[in-house]
C-alpha cells in the first residue's frame, strides 16, 4: 500500500497523546455514528509505485498513438519544442497555488502578465484575463459578458459543436435566449444574422470556423455595431500570426482555445481558454487578472487585481464563479510563444497554410472533391466523402495515419507543420487506392 504520510506510528501516537487522545477515532466524534463507514471503502488494495506503473502504463499502451495526425476540429497536433517541456516541468510552477502572496510569487505573476500581453498582442485586444478552462467555456463566458441587459445571443452554426454546446448550457442556466444563425455555403448566413439583430446582445462566430473557412467577419461587425450588439470571435491563436486580428475585423471580444500554443492533444485536456476584450469591457472579464504595480519601495511588481469582479469578494454578484483556471497551461503558452517568437510563429502559420493548401490540391487530384472550393481557409478544409469513408479511415490507420474527421457532409482534414510532403503523398496514394 502506498502512503504519502511521513509520520511514523510512534510520531502519530505522540501527537495523539499530546492531544489527550487514545485513538484517532476520537477526533471524528462529531460525525454521526449512523453514517460512518464500517470498515473500509470497497476499493482495491493500494499499489506500490512499480505496480502502479504497470497498471497505468498498461492503460496508456492500449491507446493508439498515430504517427501522422490529419484530424483537428478543435485540437491540433503541433510540434512542442523541447525547451517548452523543460520550462513547464519545473517543480515550483507545477506545485504552487494561485499567487495570493505576491511578495513570494512574482515569478508566476509575471508569467501570467506575460501571458496576458501575448494574448493581447495576438488578438490585438486591450486586455486579457489570466485564462479560463478552455475555448468552449471561454466562448460561454464571453457571451455572459455581453448580456447584462439584452438577453438574446446569436451564435453561428459554423462554430465548433463544443463551443455551441457550452454557450447553450451557460446561457440556458442564466436565462439567456440562444438563436442559431444557420450556415449557408459553409459560412454564417448573413441574411439570417441581419434578421435577428434586433435586441441581440452579441454574435459568436469563429475564425477559422468548424468547416475550416475564414468568413467575412468585417461584414458582421458593421451590422452588429450598428445594431448595438457585440461581436465575439472565437479564434485559433496560431492563425493570428497570419490572419487579420479580431481587432482588425471589428470584434469586441476575442476568445479561443490556447491548446495549439504548446500543449499536447491530451485527449482533449488540460488546455486553456483565452479571453481578451477591448478596453470598454475590461471590468466585465471574468476570472483572475494580473496587473502591474509597485511595491512600497517603488519597485515594479505584479499582483492579482480587479478582484472586485470576482467571486471571493463579490460572491453572488461576481462576473463569474471561476476560481482556479488553467495557469500552468497559460504558462505553457508563454514558454511556447517565447520559443517561437513572432518570426517562428509566423513561419509556423505559413507552413500550416501552405501545407493545407498543397494537400487540398493533391487530394483533389487524388479524386476527393472540395466541399467549399471557393472559400478561403487556413489549415483545415472539408472534402466530400469518398466512396467508403470507413474503409479509407481504416486503410489510413493501417499506415499509422489518423485521417480527417468524418462528418455528415464529408471529411474535415487538418494539416500542420507536422505533416510532411511525403506523408501527403502517402495519403493521396491511399486515397487513390481506397477512396
Amino acid at each position, binding site marked *: 500500500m*502506498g*502512503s*504519502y504520510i511521513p509520520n511514523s506510528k510512534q*510520531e*502519530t501516537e505522540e501527537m495523539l497523546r499530546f492531544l489527550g487522545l487514545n485513538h484517532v477515532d476520537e*477526533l471524528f466524534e462529531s460525525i454521526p455514528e449512523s453514517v460512518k*463507514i464500517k470498515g473500509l*471503502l470497497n476499493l*482495491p488494495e493500494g499499489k506500490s509505485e512499480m505496480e502502479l506503473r504497470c497498471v*497505468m502504463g*498498461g492503460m*496508456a*499502451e*492500449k491507446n*493508439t*498513438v*498515430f504517427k501522422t495526425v490529419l*484530424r483537428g476540429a478543435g485540437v491540433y497536433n503541433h510540434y512542442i519544442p523541447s525547451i517548452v517541456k523543460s*520550462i513547464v516541468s519545473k517543480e*515550483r*510552477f*507545477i506545485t504552487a*497555488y494561485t499567487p495570493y*502572496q505576491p511578495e513570494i510569487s*512574482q515569478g*508566476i505573476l509575471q*508569467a*501570467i502578465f*506575460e501571458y496576458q500581453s501575448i494574448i*493581447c*498582442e495576438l488578438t490585438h485586444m486591450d486586455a486579457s484575463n489570466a485564462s479560463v*478552462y478552455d475555448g468552449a*467555456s471561454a466562448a460561454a463566458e464571453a457571451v455572459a459578458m455581453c448580456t447584462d441587459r439584452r438577453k438574446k445571443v446569436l451564435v453561428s452554426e459554423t462554430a465548433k459543436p463544443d463551443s455551441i454546446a457550452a454557450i447553450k*448550457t451557460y446561457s440556458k442556466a442564466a436565462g439567456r435566449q440562444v438563436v442559431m444563425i444557420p450556415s449557408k455555403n459553409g459560412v454564417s448566413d448573413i441574411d439570417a444574422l441581419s434578421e435577428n439583430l434586433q435586441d441581440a446582445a452579441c454574435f459568436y462566430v469563429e475564425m477559422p470556423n468548424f468547416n475550416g473557412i475564414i468568413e467575412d467577419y468585417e461584414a458582421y461587425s458593421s451590422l452588429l455595431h450598428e445594431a448595438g450588439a457585440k461581436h465575439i470571435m472565437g479564434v485559433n491563436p496560431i492563425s493570428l*500570426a*497570419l490572419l487579420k*486580428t479580431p481587432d482588425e475585423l471589428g470584434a469586441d471580444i476575442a476568445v479561443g*482555445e490556447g491548446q495549439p500554443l504548446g500543449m*499536447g*492533444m491530451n*485527449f482533449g485536456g*488540460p488546455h486553456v481558454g483565452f479571453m481578451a476584450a477591448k478596453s470598454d469591457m475590461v471590468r466585465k472579464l471574468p476570472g483572475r487578472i494580473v496587473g502591474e*504595480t509597485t*511595491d512600497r519601495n517603488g519597485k515594479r511588481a505584479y*499582483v492579482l487585481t*480587479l478582484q472586485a469582479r470576482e467571486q471571493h469578494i463579490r*460572491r*453572488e454578484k461576481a462576473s*463569474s*464563479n471561476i476560481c*482556479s483556471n*488553467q495557469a500552468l497551461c497559460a*504558462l505553457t503558452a508563454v514558454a511556447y510563444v*517565447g*520559443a*517561437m517568437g*513572432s518570426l*517562428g510563429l509566423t513561419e509556423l502559420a505559413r507552413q500550416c497554410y*501552405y501545407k493545407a493548401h498543397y494537400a487540398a490540391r493533391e487530394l483533389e487530384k487524388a479524386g476527393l472533391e472540395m466541399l467549399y472550393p471557393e472559400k478561403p481557409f487556413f489549415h483545415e478544409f472539408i472534402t466530400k466523402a469518398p466512396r467508403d469513408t470507413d474503409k479509407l479511415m481504416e486503410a489510413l490507420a493501417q499506415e499509422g495515419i489518423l485521417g480527417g474527421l468524418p462528418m455528415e457532409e464529408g471529411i474535415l482534414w487538418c494539416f500542420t*507543420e507536422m505533416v510532411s510532403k511525403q506523408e501527403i503523398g502517402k495519403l493521396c496514394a491511399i486515397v487513390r487506392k481506397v477512396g
Partner: protein
Amino acid sequence: MKLLFEYPDHGKTLSILPELDTPMAEIPDVIRRKSPLRLPNISENELSRHFAELESQTFGVCDGFYPLGSCTMKYNPKINDEMASLKGFTDIHPLQPVSTVQGALEMMYTLERSLCEITGMDDITLQPAAGAHGEFTGILLIKAYHEKNGDTDRTEIIVPVSAHGTNPATAAMAGYKAVNAPVRDDGCVDLEALKKLVGPKTAGLMLTNPNTVGLFEKDILEISKLIHDAGGLLYYDGANLNPVMGIVRPGDMGFDVVHLNLHKTFSTPHGGGGPGSGPVGCKKLLSEFLPVPRIVKKDGSYDFDFDKEYSIGKVRSFYGNFLVNVKALSYILTLGAKGIREAAEGSVINANYMRKSLDDLYDMAYPDICMHEFVMTLERQKKEKGVSAMDFAKTMLDYRMHPPTMYFPLCVKEALMVEPTETESKQSLDEAIAVYRKIYEDVMADPEYAAKAPHKTPITRVDEVGAARNPRLRFEF
C-alpha cells in the same frame, strides 16, 4: 526581472521548424494580418534563464510548509506526473475512434467508479475543469431535475454565509437567487435560522462539510432531512473532503450532488492556479442530467454515449482535464482503501496537533477539535495593537514560510486559516509552530515593523489599490 518583451529582439528564431517542403500558396490580402506581430525573438539560453528566474520567484510545495486553508496543499507525488506524461495519454486526439482509445476510456471509467465509491454517489462526470466548474455543473443538475418535475417555482439556493465565494456565485450563474444562511457561534449552520429560510422556493442547499471553518456540521442529518422534506436537494462542496474520505461519504450523509477538487483532495498539483479537475457525482435521480458524453462499458469494451435526452449538455469541450484525472487515479490506486482513510486521519491529526500547540497564544475562532484545518482570529490583536491578520501573514514571509489563507471565511474577523495536510511530518509542524510563536512575539513587540512586512522578500508589500485603480494589464510597447 525583465519581461520577455524587454529582451533585445535578435531578429531570428530558434530553429524549431524544418524548411517548408511543399509549394507555397497565395495568401489573399483580405485575410492577412495588417498590424505587426510584436512578440520577442530571443535565444534559447535567454528563455531558459528567464523561466529559471521566474521559477525561483515562485513558492511551491517543494519550498516547504504550505498551509493554505481550504486549499489542501498536500504533496504532489512525482509518479503521478510521470504517468500523466506517458505518450499513450498525451499524444491521443479526443476525436480518435473509440476503438483506438480504450485505455483512455478505461482510465476515466475506473476513476469514475472509484470516486463514486469514495463519495457514495451513483454516477459521476469528469467533465468539469475545476471546483467552481463542478459547482456550476452540479447546480445545473438540480435545476434540470426541478425543471423536469415542472417544479419551476424553486428559484433559491441556500448558501451559508461561511461558504466559499464560488457557492453564491455559482447559484447566481445558474440563474438562482443565493439566499444566505447564518452560522452559529459554534461555526456550524444555524439550524433554527435555516428552518425559516427553507420552503417551496428552495431548490437546494450548498454545503461544505467539514465546513469552511474546519468543523464537521454535526447537524447534517437534520439539515438533510429539512431540505429534502421541503423538496430541495443537497449539494456537497467537496473542497473539504480530505479529512473525511474513507470515514464518511457525502452520499450517506444525504447529499444528492457533490463536486470534488481533485487538485486538492486527490493530490494533483495546482499549477499556480490550475489546471484542476472538478468531477461531479450524483445520486441516481440526477444521473440522466449529467453532461454528455457518458462513458459506458459494454462487453468489456468502452464507449461514449452522447445520446442523453435530459442531459444539461456540455460545460466545456471534450471530456474534462484528462491528464489531471490520470494523476488522481494514480493517487487513488496507490493509496487504496486503507491509504485513503489514513490520509484523512493524518490530516485531522496534524491540524489538531498544530491547533493545540498554538491555542495558548493565538485565539482560535472555534475552540473545539477541528477536522483538517482551523481558523485563528487576530481580532483582539487588531483592537489592542492595530496589527492585522495581514501583518502576521506578511511577517511570516520573512521566515520563508507560506502564510495560511487570510481573511477567509468572511464570517471570522481577521482570520488566518491553517490547513497543514497529512503530508507534513511532525518535525515540519514543530518547525512551523516555532515560527508562528516567534512571529507572535515579533508582531506584538513591533507592530509598526510588522505593518511594513515583509522585509526580506524580493519585493516588499505591493500597492494593490494602485493596481486596481489604474490597471496596467499588459506590456505596453
